[in-house]
């Protein structure tokens, strides 16, 4: 029983990581029609910014908790900044040329990761975290590392925040409408391109958050972490439905749990099961669980 609890919590935590990455991907694709392959790079850039700030701040800020918090904020800011910059400089000029936009994100994914590797090497680093994060809490007989709970809580918070943003703010309204019919939004006099930058920035923050949490979850950050997590995030987005936040959340939970449970029985088969899930979903419901059939732009 305690193994089951441990697997469930870690599965949910893994799902939480996937959701954080997937939410940005889903919004970006839903609104802009861009498959952002550079999203993994945003994750990497964010996690490295957080780690590096943590290192640089050693000595100036005594309390490790505060230092960690500040580093995370810096990491998020860098993630948002890089993402917004990428959208403004590289993506926006290719408006409506979806293939070229995707290709640019592919090239960017190579270039950004290589850049990180150039300056900080291919080896892994560890982010300095308050010790309680790595401690465990007893839950029904299982000893669950605390960072799992943090990941789940953060993801839940982001989910709630995103839904509230979409529901209650003007930009949220614009984005929801734009996911459905971008052209009509412009036909109402709204410059939808501002929403693009915003959506990229949101994605950047969420990805950076995922990067920091992944760094804690796997006890290390390295230049390729973003890319490997990105694949599963893509699968989550497609299963959940491109453009649907709720879909990503549901799919993330399913994928995380399936992966954990099955991998426990037989290493690696969990990953295969997720792939099978994707294939089945696409064959039965190509739009994903919650997705629009084909987002009109």
């Amino acid at each position: 029983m305690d193994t089951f609890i441990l697997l469930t919590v870690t599965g949910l935590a893994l799902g939480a990581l996937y959701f954080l990455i997937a939410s940005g991907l889903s919004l970006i694709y839903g609104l802009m029609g861009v498959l952002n392959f550079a999203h993994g790079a945003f994750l990497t850039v964010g996690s490295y910014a957080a780690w590096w700030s943590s290192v640089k701040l050693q000595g100036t800020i005594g309390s490790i908790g505060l230092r960690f918090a500040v580093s995370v904020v810096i990491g998020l800011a860098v993630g948002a900044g890089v993402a917004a910059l990428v959208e403004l400089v590289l993506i926006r000029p290719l408006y409506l040329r979806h293939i070229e936009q995707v290709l640019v994100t592919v090239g960017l994914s190579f270039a950004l990761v290589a850049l990180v590797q150039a300056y900080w090497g291919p080896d892994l680093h560890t982010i300095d975290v308050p010790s309680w994060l790595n401690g465990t809490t007893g839950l029904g007989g299982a000893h669950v590392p605390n960072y799992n709970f943090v990941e789940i809580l953060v993801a839940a918070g982001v989910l709630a925040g995103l839904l509230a943003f979409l529901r209650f703010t003007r930009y949220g309204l614009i984005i929801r409408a734009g996911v459905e019919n971008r052209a009509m939004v412009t036909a109402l006099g709204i410059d939808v391109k501002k929403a693009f930058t915003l959506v990229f920035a949101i994605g950047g923050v969420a990805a950076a958050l995922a990067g920091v949490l992944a760094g804690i979850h796997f006890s290390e950050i390295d230049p390729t972490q973003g890319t490997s997590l990105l694949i599963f995030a893509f699968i989550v987005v497609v299963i959940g439905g491109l453009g649907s936040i709720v879909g990503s959340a549901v799919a993330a939970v399913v994928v995380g749990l399936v992966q954990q449970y099955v991998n426990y029985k037989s290493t690696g088969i969990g990953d295969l099961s997720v792939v099978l899930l994707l294939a089945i979903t696409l064959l039965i419901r190509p739009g994903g669980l919650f997705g629009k059939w084909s987002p009109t732009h």
Partner: protein
Amino acid sequence: MTSALLDVQDLHVYLGQSHVLQGVSFSVPEGGVTAVLGRNGVGKTTTMRALMGLVQPRGRATLGDADLTKLPTHEIVRLGVGYVPEDREVFSQLTVEENLRLAVRNGSARYDLVYELFPELRERGGQRAGTLSGGQQQMVAIARALLNENRLLLVDEPTKGLAPLLVAEVAEVLGKASETETILLVEQNLGVVARLARDAIVLDQGRVVYSGPAKDLLADQQRVRTLLGVA
């Protein structure tokens, strides 16, 4: 002599390989309704979309000082151009109220006017627009255009697929609106055209083949048959 509000000169539009608009020129006088007529596929909707910047036109289309062909869509709209597209295109995932709210261009939205014209929309404010009937969606589409004061209102086949009762309602609403706004109306329903339009433009194969008073055109049965197909 009323001055031209919109002056279109030599508009060309290519969609893929096809040369859809082959030098469309006309002017829309200020005030009242100008109807755009023609058989299916002659380029009426494309003309509207070109004016809105939703397709790439070549030529000139001046609204006052501005050349619409050089502006992006949202800026065209901000000049005071309202748009009711052919397939309504309301946002089905948003509520009626949200559909309207999205359309508000600046502070002063004419909710009173809109709810007076379409009381049903006030009642159904919280309803998802995707669950509305075709006629109700048409109301939303028109309402959100009328929410703002427009210098020019582009309306594309608003009565398409509606029951006769609803057609009359739409015609009445547009008639009221035309008292304060200039309307360019694409319409196949000649009854509506007769009722609302002062001037008419007929398109054929991507060109303007008639431009003049609507009354004169409709009185000429022969012409109506040739240019518009079955009268």
